[in-house]
């Protein structure tokens, strides 16, 4: 071994320690010959990547000339390798054979072992009002950045129209002066709120569906109402049961009477309006040769096909509806030109018309035009169209095209898996949680809990095999299909108050919120076991589903 060269090498490295380029140059040089030698030995097995490197090295060698050679006793190395080879091969084999060992997961030092209740959110100041008006939490939602949780309040015992004063409370649980018993924002509303959803990107915009059938849009940062819709035979007349923001930032609402409406609230420049929906559908089913409207309770958009929606009904049906988004291109402008009859179809009306049931368009057109002529109205706004009262079944198409195996009671929630795009779970009054695939009518798995209602179920945003559900006994059931395919692995018990709504935080992914009877929202921090994805977990789920 030539020590002189080594000293030289070390010295140079020190000199160039902070000039990156030069240092790497020397280091590269150090391995040049090694590569060459190695490649010589294994030419046949070399891949072209290595071949390229070889050329590069050769070029370097030619251009830069000087070389430092890492010297070693090759005999000693050969002896060493010969000596350790059996051990290494044995160890390699062993670790391949030990499957159990592979799935072993140590508890790392940052791990959270226990699922903990971190906050109990209430509104202490409003407690007497809540009790007096028998308000309960009807829905909870995290906002888009996962920092704020909102709870909508409503009375669950209504006689006819709702005239209650109700609330939407928002807690920013990451704010420094956050107090669990004092919401960051309290929005007072004139009706009971049934459901809501935050804007998918704007964390302060909240769409809320009311018991009377109005859709409200709030800005929670300024505590102001941005827009609200009206009640009409052609809009929602009964309670709105679900609100969804679609990809094009339009809002889809599902009503108890069976209508699905799509609204576009944006008017540009921060202006919002919910004067009228731009598209409508009417969920209808044939039962014993009679058509009946379907009382929609929950709706979820498919991850696979954005035009596919799964609707859960009051009666227990699980249905697939095909709903295309609003068509904004004015294709029917020429068709709806009735200026020769002295009638002007307004642009907004044309837009509305072209999103209606196309089959019945001529009929509706005639109906509206004759109505307007009778009353000597020249300009046809949407209001006139609505006032003329065309047949609603003809106006709004029936989007249902598939029915899944039905539940025996109201379907309260539907949640799609974020990983296997066609899988979804349903929660129902019959005490069942069911797992379906979008293209199979029969459900794949049923988890049954006798004498309870399953009020909400949702897939975990981080682990493909994990989902959670909550029931009327107040329990939160967390399933982990990698551990147990038959029943839950974790039960978060509660003394008596029923748990109505459960939401994973999509951003702070270890947080799970659940609302309880008595106007309480609890925030749980899940343990790492339930939040850290496991190796091959997705594959395992796919196998289970196939």
């Amino acid at each position, binding site marked *: 071994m030539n020590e002189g060269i080594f000293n030289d090498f070390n010295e140079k490295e020190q000199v160039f320690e902070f000039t990156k380029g030069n240092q790497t140059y020397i280091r590269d040089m150090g391995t040049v010959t090694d590569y060459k030698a190695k490649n010589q030995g294994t030419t046949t097995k070399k891949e072209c990547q290595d071949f390229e490197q070889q050329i590069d090295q050769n070029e370097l060698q030619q251009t830069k000339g000087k070389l430092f050679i890492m010297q070693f006793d090759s005999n*000693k190395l050969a002896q060493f390798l*010969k000596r350790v080879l059996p051990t290494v*091969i044995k160890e390699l084999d062993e670790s391949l054979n030990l499957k159990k060992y592979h799935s*072993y997961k140590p508890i790392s030092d940052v791990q959270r072992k226990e699922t903990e209740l971190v906050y109990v959110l209430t509104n202490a100041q409003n407690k007497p009002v809540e009790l007096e008006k028998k308000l309960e939490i009807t829905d909870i939602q995290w906002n888009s950045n996962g920092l704020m949780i909102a709870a909508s309040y409503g009375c669950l015992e209504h006689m006819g129209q709702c005239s209650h004063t109700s609330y939407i409370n928002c807690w920013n649980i990451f704010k420094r002066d956050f107090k669990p018993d004092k919401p960051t924002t309290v929005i007072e509303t004139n009706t009971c709120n049934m459901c809501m959803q935050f804007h998918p990107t704007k964390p302060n915009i909240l769409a809320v569906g009311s018991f009377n059938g109005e859709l409200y849009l709030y800005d929670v940062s300024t505590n102001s109402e941005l827009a609200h819709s009206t009640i009409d035979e052609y809009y929602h007349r009964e309670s709105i049961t679900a609100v969804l923001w679609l990809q094009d930032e339009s809002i889809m609402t599902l009503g108890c009477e069976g209508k699905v409406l799509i609204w576009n609230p944006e008017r540009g420049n921060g202006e919002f309006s919910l004067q009228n929906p731009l598209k409508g559908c009417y969920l209808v089913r044939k039962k014993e040769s009679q058509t009946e409207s379907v009382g929609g309770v929950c709706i979820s958009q498919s991850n696979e096909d954005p035009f596919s929606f799964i609707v859960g009904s009051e009666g227990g049906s699980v249905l697939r509806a095909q709903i295309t988004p609003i068509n904004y291109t004015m294709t029917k402008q020429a068709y709806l030109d009735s200026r020769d009859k002295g009638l002007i179809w307004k642009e907004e009306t044309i837009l509305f018309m072209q999103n209606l049931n196309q089959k019945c368009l001529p009929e509706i057109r005639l109906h509206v035009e004759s109505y307007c002529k009778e009353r000597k109205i020249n300009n046809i706004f949407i209001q006139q169209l609505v006032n003329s009262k065309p047949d609603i079944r003809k106006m709004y198409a029936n989007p249902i095209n598939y029915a899944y195996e039905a539940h025996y009671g109201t379907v309260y929630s539907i949640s799609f898996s974020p990983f296997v795009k066609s899988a979804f779970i349903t929660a129902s009054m019959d005490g069942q949680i069911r797992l379906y695939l979008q293209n199979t009518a029969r459900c794949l798995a049923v988890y049954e809990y006798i004498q309870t209602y399953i009020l909400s179920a949702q897939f975990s945003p981080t682990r493909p095999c994990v989902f959670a559900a909550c029931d009327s006994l107040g329990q939160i059931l967390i399933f982990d299909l990698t551990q147990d395919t038959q029943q839950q692995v974790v039960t978060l018990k509660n003394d008596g108050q029923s748990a109505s709504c459960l939401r994973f935080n999509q951003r702070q992914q270890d947080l799970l919120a659940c609302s309880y009877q008595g106007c309480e929202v609890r925030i749980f921090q899940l343990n790492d076991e339930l939040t850290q994805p496991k190796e091959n977990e997705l594959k395992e789920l796919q196998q289970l589903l196939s």
Partner: protein
Amino acid sequence: MSDIEETINRIKTHKSVQGIVICNNDGQIIRSTYGSESKEGENIARTIPTLAAKAKSTVRDLDPMNELTFLRIKSKNNEIMVAPDKEFLLIVVQGPKEEKKEEE
């Protein structure tokens, strides 16, 4: 030379082997199956010998008559096996087959 190459090849062709680094106890690479552009081999050669030396002395501290023979580090993504010696270190990185494929 061919003896060395043969041994390296035998380990390399073993199922689920991601890479091999042979270095001296100072962390200077003698052989590496990692490309010279990727820092991976260099990082291994820089860090593992220190750890191996520490393990060696720990074993000896616990029992002066004992000696470290093999070091196996199991991690989430792969497994690092170290065969220590007076002069050389053989470091074999073993990982699941699927991951290897994905990388390729």
